[in-house]
């Protein structure tokens, strides 16, 4: 079932699991360690890269994403080793995107040349806020000044390929100050901006402070206004919103991330990394969702022993894959095109999949969704409400899919013995 475009190439992502300190809002899989064994980590990452690329039997890697943790804490030579491994085991195009997350600290900024030399082509800078009070609430390890200086440096080394991450909905923030902050940023930033609404995750320090009412985050209404304000401000400044949280001008989109939303295969290497690929090398043609072992020392032990630290493998059914495609695809401004969807599920079009449900018709009528010649996508208003629309869409997809399977079953099972009229549902 895998369309050729889905299978022949692969996105490659790897995790550097360490951070210098714990941000108050972050619940990612990360570890604070002062004595990281860089050589051991490098060897582990290289080894797992070799193993998993072997399992995937993929011909080409189209992009690399280096995430974390804080990957700018890794040695540039570690990154170079991994990229060399990728290039050795499989084919990489000469202009391949190699995106890396970095904290805007002076330490990281001072090593940008080395990262570039190692092969990094694109930098995603975790600026988060341009106000020191908020940076300290978020527990970041840099000041606004340091961030702006890092941004200048990054633009010097990665012109047109530098992205800035910002968080909104911070405690005490209001729409006006947010707009001011955005204006300030637009004057300084490069061609890509990611905006994330602050999510209070259970178990984080910030969550606790808000629970205990030591801090309060803006109301949902204010959050909505901040989001819409940001979309307007960035739009006016020539940024195209190509995904819920991502804005680019001059086409400077992150190819790697687009791959996630387009339902492409990807391979995850490193502690806690996630992957989606068919391990042809292991004799499996079905796509699997994989998670690598979370804890770095456990992961390393497994990599040494088995060549990889895959902790969980779940086979994905055709419906699983379509569900992900729907959920991820609608995050993009382009949405799901008919061509794209049918490539994945021949004979089961978008209209049949979701378009016939009364609720979905209501969404279309309310202009939250658009279903036209191009495909299915969110309207401007709809995008902000996507997670309210998705359960209905998913539910409908599941029902329609079951119906279509039953139909094709009945067609294959009840073929009349002699030539005659095609069986119909009339009884």
């Amino acid at each position, binding site marked *: 079932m895998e369309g050729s475009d889905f299978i022949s190439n692969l996105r490659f992502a790897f995790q550097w699991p360490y951070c210098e300190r714990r941000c108050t809002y972050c619940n990612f899989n990360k570890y604070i360690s002062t004595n990281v064994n860089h050589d051991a980590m490098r060897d582990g990452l290289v080894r797992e890269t070799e193993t998993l690329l072997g399992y995937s039997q993929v011909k080409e890697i189209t992009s690399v994403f280096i995430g974390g943790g804080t990957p700018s804490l890794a040695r540039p030579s570690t990154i170079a080793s991994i990229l060399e491994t990728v290039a050795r085991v499989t084919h990489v195009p000469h202009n391949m995107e190699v995106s890396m997350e970095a904290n805007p600290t002076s330490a990281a900024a001072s090593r940008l040349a080395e990262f570039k030399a190692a092969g990094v082509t694109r930098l995603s800078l975790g600026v988060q806020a341009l106000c020191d009070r908020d940076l300290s609430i978020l527990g970041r390890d840099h000041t606004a000044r340091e961030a702006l200086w890092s941004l200048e440096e990054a633009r010097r080394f990665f012109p047109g390929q530098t992205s800035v991450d910002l968080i909104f909905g911070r405690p005490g923030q209001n729409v006006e100050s947010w707009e001011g902050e955005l204006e300030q940023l637009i004057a300084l930033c490069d061609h890509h901006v990611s905006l994330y609404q602050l999510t209070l995750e259970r178990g984080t320090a910030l969550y606790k402070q808000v629970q205990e009412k030591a801090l309060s985050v803006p109301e*949902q209404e204010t959050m909505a206004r901040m989001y819409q304000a940001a979309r307007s401000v960035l739009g006016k400044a020539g940024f195209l919103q190509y995904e819920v949280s991502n804005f680019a001008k001059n086409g400077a989109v992150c190819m790697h991330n687009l791959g996630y939303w387009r339902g492409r295969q990807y391979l995850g290497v490193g502690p806690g990394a*996630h992957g989606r690929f068919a391990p042809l090398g292991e004799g499996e043609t079905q796509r699997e969702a994989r998670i690598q072992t979370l804890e770095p020392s456990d992961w390393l032990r497994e990599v040494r022993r088995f060549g990889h630290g895959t902790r969980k493998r779940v086979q994905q059914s055709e419906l699983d894959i379509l569900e*992900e495609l729907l959920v991820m695809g609608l995050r993009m401004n382009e949405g799901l095109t008919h061509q794209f969807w049918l490539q994945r599920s021949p004979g089961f079009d978008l209209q049949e999949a979701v378009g016939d449900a009364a609720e979905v018709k209501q969404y279309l009528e309310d202009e939250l969704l658009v279903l036209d010649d191009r495909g299915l996508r969110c309207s401007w208003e709809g995008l902000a409400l996507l*997670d309210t629309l998705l359960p209905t869409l*998913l*539910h409908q997809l599941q029902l329609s899919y079951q119906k279509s399977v039953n139909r094709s079953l009945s067609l294959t099972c009840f073929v009349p013995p002699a030539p005659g009229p095609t069986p119909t549902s009339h009884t």
Partner: protein
Amino acid sequence: MLIGLGRLPVWFSRWRLFSVCVRLRLHGGASAGGGPPGGAGKDYPQRGKDNYDLSEFPTENIRNFSIIAHVDHGKSTLADRLLEITGAIVKTERNKQVLDKLQVERERGITVKAQTATLFYHHAGRTYLLNLIDTPGHVDFSYEVSRSLSACQGVLLIVDANEGIQAQTVANFFLAFESQLMIIPVINKIDLKHAEPDRVAKQIEKVFDIPKEECIQISAKLGTNVDKVLEKVVEKIPPPCANLSDPLRALVFDSTYDHYRGVIASIALFDGWVQKGDKIMSSYTKKVYEVNEVGILRPDQYPVEKLNAGQVGYLVAGMKEVKEAQIGDTFYLQKQPVEPLAGFKPAKPMVFAGMYPVDQSEYTNLRKAVEKLTLNDSSVTVHRDSSPALGAGWRLGFLGLLHMEVFNQRLEQEYNASVILTAPTVPYKAVLSSSKLIKEYGEEEITILNPCHFPDRLQVKEYLEPVVTGTILTPDDYIGKIISLSQSRRGVQKNIVYIDDHRLMMQYLFPLNEIVVDFYDSLKSLSSGYASFDYEDAGYQVADLIKMDFYLNGKCVEELATIVHREKAYATGKAIAVRLKDTIPQQLFEIAIQAAIGNKIIARETIKAVRKNVLAKCYGGDITRKMKLLKRQAEGKRRMRKIGNVEVPKDAFINVLKRQKDK
């Protein structure tokens, strides 16, 4: 049973020979599957030759008694000691509440199901047959208590030397008093550091009019003075009035269900005797049964050749359903009908609640579990019911709140069932005025269990609500708070007396629905746990009842309709509206939640339309988690109920309808 066997020769020193026969008969019974033991059968003249014959105990050597007490005052511990002293069970450290067989009983320290134990006791050169009939402590189970008492001539009234008289002490005392039983006051726990037995003795004198000198001061835990209790039982409690020469007349005072043997009826013989092979008839059903086995409970079943007048024991006669052994029924010999004994009124459910499986696929299993449980607890009434939100289920009637909780807990513990239990309601009544309706119902006064059937005010003369007499015992420090709590529950004070220098007994007439949900918890918390409460049925009173409806964006939500007293309408409406607001998720449009009486809106809450709801970050590592959440929500859509255009998740209904414990 083995314990008893080993001990038999010791107590029966006079009948040492016979005990051997008992042993043989038991072995025979076990291997031959209960075939008729040698010679004894339907042949009445043979009876006299029966070797092991409880008629060796003349009626004057028999004492039938119960222990009654407030919860935790040591009833079951005293029972353990009595069993040990008389050798019914071996004395060990582990004898804790031997008669409390259910897990729920041991966990809650309460007795739900009355048990019986027959004890052999030597006193002043004679051997007495003592039948201890255990009773539940809580008045929810007063029906069980009165059943037990009907087989007794006397009671031990246990009072904690530290806590003194509590609400259930009073309630139980009156049950015994009304049955004209000999009451022996026993002050327990005198070993406690803060025990004040003399103060408690004075309370007993004041409240129950029993001279304080008559109280026996004991420590059941340590065994102190427990022998005196047995002496007093023999001395003060009269033997049963029974006549062996009259034809059989046996009262069914309890029944249990055994998966293999069917119904096991606990019986008290007032006249005559009964033995294996007898053809007996139920005066209630007129059905005839052949007796398979009779025996005594020690406390395990211990088969005997026959049971005689004045004795208490069990009977197995091939009854397949608990209903066949109707509590209060009289059994007599088929050939010799007698006037039946005065039975009891059937248990009357006072508290009703809907019960639904958490998942409809569990319906059949739950139904089986409910059926099995009601086999052993015939006081629960079961009606099939269904709710558009919760699916198919039942409306169950319970004797009281504790009864409901115990039932629920037993379902969970013994049958591993998980259920949704709706907030309890009480049986309201309406006296109809509309002749059309009277014709339709076939009677003028109807009971309303489901608010959907609440007749319109124009068609009724009056509405009635059940009321209870509530007894509160409390240290006087809390009097102010308790009075205002009771007033807020529409209670009318009937009586208030000091039972000693610091403790008060108050009696209120309460509408039952005001106390069924959280009254007891509120009382406990405002009195730091010191006040106790109990209640008994006090009939019905005229009440200004109204039906309250709930609307979501103008559409009525049928399953949320409730019957409330007019005075409570606003508070109830507001509370439910707020709970709905907290549980219905935001939707793409604004939702108005309204509580209404007729056309009049009395409370309103608004759920604002969702303005932004989209996960900010969704990359490789976030996808699995996001999909899991969305799939769960999509799954929830299937169980979503649509009221107009509003999607209401099942959880919202559950949250509104189910009993709120953390109030």
